[in-house]
């Protein structure tokens, strides 16, 4: 099949404003970090080719705006997601507390067919930030507001929500970003395949018994 289309895996990144969603995406796709990202407005996405067991997939990573007021806009691009990444800033407790809201909001708006088993991945970002010496914190009056979210607490929450995989990353330094997205892509793929079982291809009988990527022109 010369012009075979690769399967598309859609990933949505959610989380509070400024936790580093854009940075994570850019670090993973472009291996770049800038501390001059602009606040995301609306949404944007990047794509990256990923390979699993000799099969190529296009990972379409959607970067969304973290501002609360934009949340109602989510529905248009939540739909069809294969995996949802919940990001918080390990230095900002509130951003962790909000993960639950983000998760529920996503499940409501995306309404996946099997919400219980929909794959999420949680990322605690900015582990490079050193207890109040970052620029953000300098500007924050040096208030001792930054109570670091403990890894234990985060893992406990993830476990309570159906064993969500958990990663601590630094988008700035690239720490753990690749590993996290490997799992994201893998779980997105799994999700997509399960969906395929529920909704078998009724058009091409010949290829339905084969793997998804072969002969899929849809």
């Amino acid at each position, binding site marked *: 099949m010369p012009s075979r289309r690769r399967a598309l895996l859609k990933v949505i990144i959610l989380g509070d404003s400024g936790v580093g969603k854009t940075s994570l995406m850019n670090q993973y796709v472009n291996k770049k970090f800038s501390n001059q990202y602009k*606040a995301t*407005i609306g949404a*944007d996405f990047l794509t990256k080719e990923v390979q699993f067991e000799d099969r190529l997939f296009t990972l379409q990573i959607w970067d969304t705006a973290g501002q609360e007021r934009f949340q109602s806009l989510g529905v248009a691009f939540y739909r069809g997601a294969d995996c949802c990444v919940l990001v918080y800033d390990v230095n900002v407790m509130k951003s962790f507390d909000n993960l639950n809201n983000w998760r529920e909001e996503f499940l409501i708006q995306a309404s996946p067919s099997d919400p219980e088993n929909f794959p999420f991945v949680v990322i605690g970002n900015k582990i490079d930030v050193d207890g109040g010496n970052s*620029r*953000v914190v300098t*500007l924050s009056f040096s*208030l001792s507001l930054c109570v670091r979210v403990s890894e234990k607490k985060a893992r406990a929450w993830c476990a309570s929500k159906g064993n969500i995989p958990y990663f601590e990353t630094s988008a700035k330094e690239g720490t753990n970003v690749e590993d996290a997205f490997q799992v994201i892509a893998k779980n997105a793929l799994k999700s997509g395949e399960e969906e395929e079982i529920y909704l078998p291809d009724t058009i091409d009988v010949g290829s339905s018994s084969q793997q998804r990527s072969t002969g899929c022109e849809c």
Partner: protein
Amino acid sequence: MQEPELHDLSDDADYAASIEQGCATRSESSKPSSSSASSEPEGAEIVYTKDNVTIHPTQYASERISGRLKLIKQVNGNALFMTWIPYKGQSSNTKLSEKDKNLYTIRAVPFSNIRSIRRHTPTLGWQYIIVVMSSGLAFPPLYFYNGGVREFLATIKQHVFLVRSSEDANVFLVNDFQTPLQRTLSSLELPRAVSVENFPPPTPAANEDLSTADQERGVLDKSSVSFQQNGRQRQIHHDPARDLSIQVLEKFSLVTRFARETTSQLFRDSPMDGFTPNEGRKHGQLSPVYHQVTPSNDSPKVPDEVSVASDPVEFDKLSLVWGKPRQSPLGQEEWTTFLDAEGRVMDSKALKKRIFYGGVEHNLRNEVWTFLLGYHAYDSTYAEREYLMSVKKSEYDIIKKQWQSISPEQAKRFTKFRERKGLIDKDVVRTDRSLSFYDGDDNPNVYLLRDILLTYSFYNFDLGYCQLVELLDSPLHNYFKQNDCLNYFFCFRWILIQFKREFKYDTTMRLWEVLWTHYLSEHLHLYVCVAILKRYRSKIMGEQMDFDTLLKFINELSGQIDLDAILRDAEALCICAGENGAASIPPGTPPSLPLEDASIYAQQEEDDVL
């Protein structure tokens, strides 16, 4: 003298009947040939024939090519075709070879590939038509030496959907779209915004004998770019809009709905109707062959500028339709002429008009923007403004002290403040940091911005802090929600931050001051949206962008948009839409500047313009 046609539809000029040419001096009428029907291929019916229809490849009378124009209807498929076949062996001392004539031959063009026909019926001189293809390319003017343009159009109307453009009474749009939505989107593209880029240039071989003709074969009218097509190219290209699915169209939501109101207006009565017939006369007097080729669709040459002899008032109105040429920014010297001895702006309408068309020089923005933004009244004096400034300054300082006096201890027990401040801190470090004004670590201007935002947040704490300009969001969002249009994400950013991400910093400032004048409309930003989409319409439709691709495409337009050209388009759209355009914008839709008293200015402007 008339001989029956001997060719069939697939013929080229070599097979065309050799008929005495219709030269410039001929004026007797010739009857449509009815004897030729039998020579047409089976299943085709000739519904119209006109002899002595001539093209003028150059301004030289000796290089005119006459031929026979026919409308042919497919009996089975119901499709209508147009052909124009030059007569073989013209007797004049023509320099044109048969090959050249072949080049101009119009072979069975289906009306589904024709967008519009412009008619020119001058009181003096020959009537002619210009046929514009869906691709935006046009055939050279076809001169009806024996008259009959009206009959030609009437015949077409019997077979295909033909509607007169309200924008120009002499333009007839061929439109066979099935649904109003499709029609609307098709109409989104004003005639001028055509792209030649998608089309291969004429091959050198085809042009080698025609260099003079090529140079002088000009812009036929403002709605098209003259461009010789050979038969092969005609076969390949078709209007991508026709392939467009409704699903993709619906992604246009915001702009669609708005544009439907706006552009459907183009098909009905419009204020411009009053003078378009004059335009026709003018063009008739000025032979189109003298017009120069417009090389591309950007910064289009205003054909009206060529018509030097025309009435200045008429010219003024006419050029408005296409958006006036942009002017240079308002400078210091000119600015002082707007002020009286005590510093009052004497004619605020004139000032706003001036800024609308040219913007303001950077060093004047500090002063002039205070008026545009409603900080100072136009009729305030220097002294009044100075006083107001000092009052406001002390107000600012008081509010600033309020949040500055919050100690870290107090902040711990003041969650709302911490959160608000946290948001602002996050945003200021990612606001325009690549500009020299804000760049580098510990830039004092970043702190200044932080202070201003936080102070404003205290001034209006209930409003909340919403990433600078999100004031616009809520009513606008409600508007879309009411209209079941939640798919407007691709231009959400445009409106939300008023195109700030789409242009370079200084260009953004230019756009903003133009929007703030509220000259023509307080919703000019919506027309700007439409203008941008219109400009990229053929690309969007041609590539059949789905929602994802469209969003990506629009996001990546950032930095690619020619502001001046877009402003001219927006101006033209705004004027074309007229009052109905304004009426189609729901009450409560925020103006381009979220000022409570902004509507007062807009009201004045509407009286001025309409």
